[in-house]
């Protein structure tokens, strides 16, 4: 548990960031009264640098770098416990998803391992049209240098994993879709 202390000058945040998050996610950060119910039910917060209510607070204050540079937004599992229970009916998970996409597109990667995994997944889809699980694991291992993490699972899993990808005949079409999406930096 890390609690760090800061001295912040209010009013120096970027309100255009708050507006951008509001527009992209369709959620209004001002509705949040920081009751903490989201943090209370979040399954991943224990592993993150900030609890989810703090991320929302930072959004309210327009502190762009702190938000997009946080690890939490990469760890959100989209389990929607926060959204289901928020008394102010904010779809917190949607907001966190928006922040991750903004961070990804903007090159802010606070959790390299998660980003690499997600990127390898998308890449696997691009190459084969369907995810090649073994290929995904190998690409992840190579790009993170973590070669031995999952070795203990190998005997149990290998029986079900195929060495070769199950390519689909639609792979070409999928490749085009992914490449177009990853090339553009355009807005939704």
């Amino acid at each position, binding site marked *: 548990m890390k609690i760090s202390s800061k001295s912040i000058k209010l009013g120096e945040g970027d309100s255009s960031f708050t507006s951008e998050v509001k527009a992209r996610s369709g959620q209004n950060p001002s509705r949040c009264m920081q009751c903490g119910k989201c943090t209370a039910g979040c*399954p*991943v917060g*224990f*592993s993150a640098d900030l609890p989810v209510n703090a991320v929302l607070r930072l959004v309210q204050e327009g502190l762009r770098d702190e938000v997009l540079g946080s690890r939490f937004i990469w*760890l959100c*599992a*989209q*389990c*929607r*416990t926060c959204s*289901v229970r928020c008394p102010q009916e904010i*779809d917190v998970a949607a907001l966190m*998803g928006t922040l*991750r*996409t903004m961070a*990804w*597109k903007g090159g802010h990667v606070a*959790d390299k*391992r*998660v980003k*690499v*995994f*997600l*990127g390898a*997944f*998308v890449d696997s*889809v691009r190459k084969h*049209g*369907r*995810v090649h*699980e*073994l290929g995904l*694991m190998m690409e*992840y291992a190579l790009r*993170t240098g973590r070669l031995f*993490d*999952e070795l*203990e*699972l190998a005997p*149990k*899993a290998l*029986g*079900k*994993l*195929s060495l070769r990808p*199950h390519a*689909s*005949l*639609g*792979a070409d*079409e*999928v490749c*085009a*879709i*992914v490449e*177009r*999406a*990853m090339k553009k930096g*355009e807005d*939704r």
Partner: protein
Amino acid sequence: MNQIQYAYFPGCSQTGTAVEYDMSVRATAKALDVELIEIPDWTCCGSSPAQSADKTLMAALTARNLRLVEEMGRAGVVTPCPSCLKALKVAGEYMEHDHGRGLVGKLLDRMPAGAVPSASILQVFVEDVGLEEIAKRVVRPLKGLVAAPYYGCVLTRPKRLMGFDDEEDPQSMDKLLRALGAQVPDFPFKVECCGASYGVPRREIVVRQSGRILDMARRVGANAIVTACPLCHQNLDLRQGQAARSLDTRFDLPILYVTQVLGLALGLEYHALGLDKHAVNVRTLVDAVFEAPRPVNEEADRCE
């Protein structure tokens, strides 16, 4: 009996780590007269990684499959994976609005005409076939199975999108399991997140969450956890050893797919349901709970 006909979207997991889920879905669908025709050339829906990169990417990848379903002339598509189901529904929403169609149109050349009805295999069995009909066909009631019903966090959330059961206390699987003769204790963690796809990059999340779920299942007296999601299965089964070690214990808790449990009750065969492919041994439980597996063709045995 009239056959219910659907297009079938297996999802990538079902070709790999969750192949037994696919086997049991097909076997039980056949046994219950639900015709599933696999979408030819189906491709990945993108799931959460694609959504993280760009929500429209996921919508476009999935919309391609919606188009294929339309081309098949099927009224609806069924999938066993909640994440794929969510993608199908989100893509459907994009297809219903001009703005969404415009965004997807920039990525996908040939678009579907509109949304296509989609459902999970659990929903099809519970709502379309019906519990009464299923109960009638039970050959081997599952006495002795104390099943913790684990739905996972995606299947019923958000309600307005997924349109099935309840976000906090779903009952469809509970009722199905009871109709099959099993005991279903009150399970407070039935919709707790298992850690999703963080098993590889952030194992501590899966270890902690799956550990909590396994521990709670044991505390409420369950001798198995029944699930309807391939990722939940993977985290609770494949990674059960990791979770157990973190809590300095052993679980030895079989993790069964709901379709496998259903298949056993309907008299289907052990290997046909892929029960030999689990990381945590299932055989001991199955033998204890059921009589020895018998061939399905013995009609005479159906009159119990």
